[in-house]
């Protein structure tokens, strides 16, 4: 079985400040790792993913996440946030040995302060 823990339900941060959203997972098998973003009243959009290779993955809008196998973590970071980054962020995993479901964390609400 797999589980995903997002330690912070809400993270307030000032505009242009750096941010880190934490994610830890538990799994008895190898997994693919994802971060999804959900803007108010919208569905989920894939922000970035780790499938294999370099443990540092980047998105087109300045976010990055690093896969740490020993700590079973996949924290999301951005060096300078903008008001448009206000959203809910979900960390998720999918077992490599099956393709039927994605397991999500409970989400972290990023609240940008002016």
């Amino acid at each position, binding site marked *: 079985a797999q589980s995903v823990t997002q330690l912070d339900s809400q993270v307030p941060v000032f505009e242009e400040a750096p941010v880190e959203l934490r994610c830890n997972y538990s799994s008895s098998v190898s997994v693919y790792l994802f971060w999804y973003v959900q803007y108010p009243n919208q569905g989920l959009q894939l922000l970035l993913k780790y499938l294999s290779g370099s443990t540092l993955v980047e998105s087109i809008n300045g976010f990055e996440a690093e896969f740490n196998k020993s700590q079973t973590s996949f924290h999301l970071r951005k060096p300078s946030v903008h008001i448009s980054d206000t959203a809910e962020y979900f960390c998720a995993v999918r077992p490599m040995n099956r*393709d039927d479901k994605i397991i999500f964390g409970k989400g972290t609400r990023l609240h940008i302060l002016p």
Partner: protein
Amino acid sequence: DAGVTQSPTHLIKTRGQHVTLRCSPISGHKSVSWYQQVLGQGPQFIFQYYEKEERGRGNFPDRFSARQFPNYSSELNVNALLLGDSALYLCASSLTARQGARTEAFFGQGTRLTVV
């Protein structure tokens, strides 16, 4: 190109009623999955269908059922609605459901169901 489309966008039903939610996947995608997102929580997996066959089922009661049509669109049906069924229902499509495939899931905007 159209993304994943879901209908209706919003729905209000009474306890005990039945509801049908619809999803059209991205053109060429053969796999459709359904998720339930209760307010303040992450999405929970309900079903996956691939090539019209059920490939996976989450921990949901038998009141929940689904099917996939020859054009790969899908319906989610919920019978005997309870207040606790109020949620955002998300549909996701992916190219394939081949085991181990590094396929990405694309989500629709969801259907917000309110049970009163």
